[in-house]
Structure formats: C-alpha cells, structure tokens
C-alpha cells in the first residue's frame, strides 16, 4: 500500500510535517480572527464604528 496513510519507518516524519503545518496555520488563522473580532468590538464599544 502506498499513499499518505501507508505504513513505513519514515511515515511519522511525513505525518509530523503535515501536523506541524496544520497546527501553525490553524493557530495563525484562529488568532487572526480573534484579533479581528476584538478590535471591532473595542471600536464599537467606543462608538467609533459605523454599523456594518
């Protein structure tokens, strides 16, 4: 069997590389969205934001 889910001595390195990529990018996306929401909320609280 070949493919991403094959077994083999080197597969943990392949899975690890994809896992690291996923974790880093997922963290970046989640933090970016959370920052966006927080900034928008603070603007709204100070009455600086137009209704959108």
């Amino acid at each position: 069997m070949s493919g991403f889910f094959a077994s083999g001595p080197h597969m943990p390195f392949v899975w690890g590389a994809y896992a690291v990529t996923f974790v880093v990018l997922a963290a970046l996306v989640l933090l970016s969205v959370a920052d966006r929401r927080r900034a928008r909320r603070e603007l709204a609280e100070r009455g600086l934001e137009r209704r959108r």
Partner: protein
Amino acid sequence: MAPSRASNLHFLANPARFRRFSAAVLPALAVVTALALAVGLYFATVVSPPDYQQGETVRIMFVHVPSAWLSMAGYALLAGLGASLLVWRHPLAALMARASAPIGASFAAICLITGSLWGRPMWGAYWAWDARLTSMLLLFFLYLGHIALSRAYDDPERGDRAAAILSLVGLINLPIIKFSVDWWNTLHQPASVARLGGPAIHSSILVPLLIMFAALLLLYVTLVLLRTETEIDRRRLEAAA
C-alpha cells in the same frame, strides 16, 4: 507626537478604501482558499505517487517548498511595503507590513520544521549548518526582528519606520537564500522547479506542488487582508485613546 489634521485625513482616506475593498472580497476569498486547500491536500496525500528514490517522504515537499517560496515572497512584500512607507509615506503600507510579518514568520517556521523532519530520514540529520538552512533560519529571525522592532516604541509610527529599515536591509538575504545552493556546496539539493531549462520534476509531483502553492498563497493573501483590517482598527483605537 500629534499628527496634523491633514495627515490624519490622509491616513483615513486610503485605509477606508482598503476596508471597503477588503470587506467585499474577503468572504469569497476565504471560501476559494478553503476549496483550494482541500484540492491541494487531496493531490498531495492521495493522487501523487511516491518518489522512486524517496518513497513517501516526498510528500513533505508539498508543504515544505510552498512554505519556503511564500516566506521569501512574503519578505519581498514586507520590504516593498517598507520602501513605500519610507519613500512615499504610504499610510496603509505600515499597517499591512505589521499584518504580514507574523504570516511570513509562520511560513518560515513551517519551512524550517518540515525541512528538519525531511532531513532526518533523507540525510540522517535534523539540522546542518548548511548555507541554505542557515540563510533560511536568518530569514525567520529577520521576521521576528521586524515584529519586535515594530512594537518596540510607544509611538507606533516610529516602530513602523524602524521595522521598515530592517526589512530593506534584510532584503540582501533573499538572493543569498536563492543562490546558496549554487554558491556553496550544500547538503540541500539545488533548485528543481525555478531553474534554467525548466522544472526537473515529473508532472505527477509538480502539479500537486503547484496546487498546494496556489492554495497556500491564497491563504497568505486572505490573512494579509484580514489582519490589515485589524491593524487599521487598532491604529484608530490608538488615535482615539
């Protein structure tokens, strides 16, 4: 430091246009990015065959190489934004640079870590002080330096300028990364896609690589837009404080 009324208005003009543009394209861009990532991952993990020499570890390339390209292109963007801040005082440039640097740093980190995980089975070492690896590590530190410098001053505009100067000085590292594999005897292999005479990779592996690159490029652009919106709001909050 009290910015003049005129520069304030100038500051608001372009970012306001940017926000209208960004609000219009971001939702569609996010959907296209998600679809492209799904297709790219399918090609990278299922469709593409194992390499005849490297076996399944070649699949690491589909995240490693796009991350390397994007972290380098992202640095060129950062330096371009730095130049437009220092030369033309473009108000949006500084905010977009602030928004971009952590994205570039993330891709540089992914490149370094996945490269390390590829190096262990293929070279027998997680790390070597090879010219390609070392110049790539320097790129990561340049990104960290940019993030730190831009936040090092109470006056955010001074931080913007200091970080812009760093981004221009660090530009010298990009050709060093690109040509390190030609100028020195490196453990890292030479270029096999962007080379004279065309790519030296079979299309069964080149196509998934290019799809993953396109997908991650879309993610990069999406994040730049989203994070620039945040930086515009933050600057407005600071101006109002």
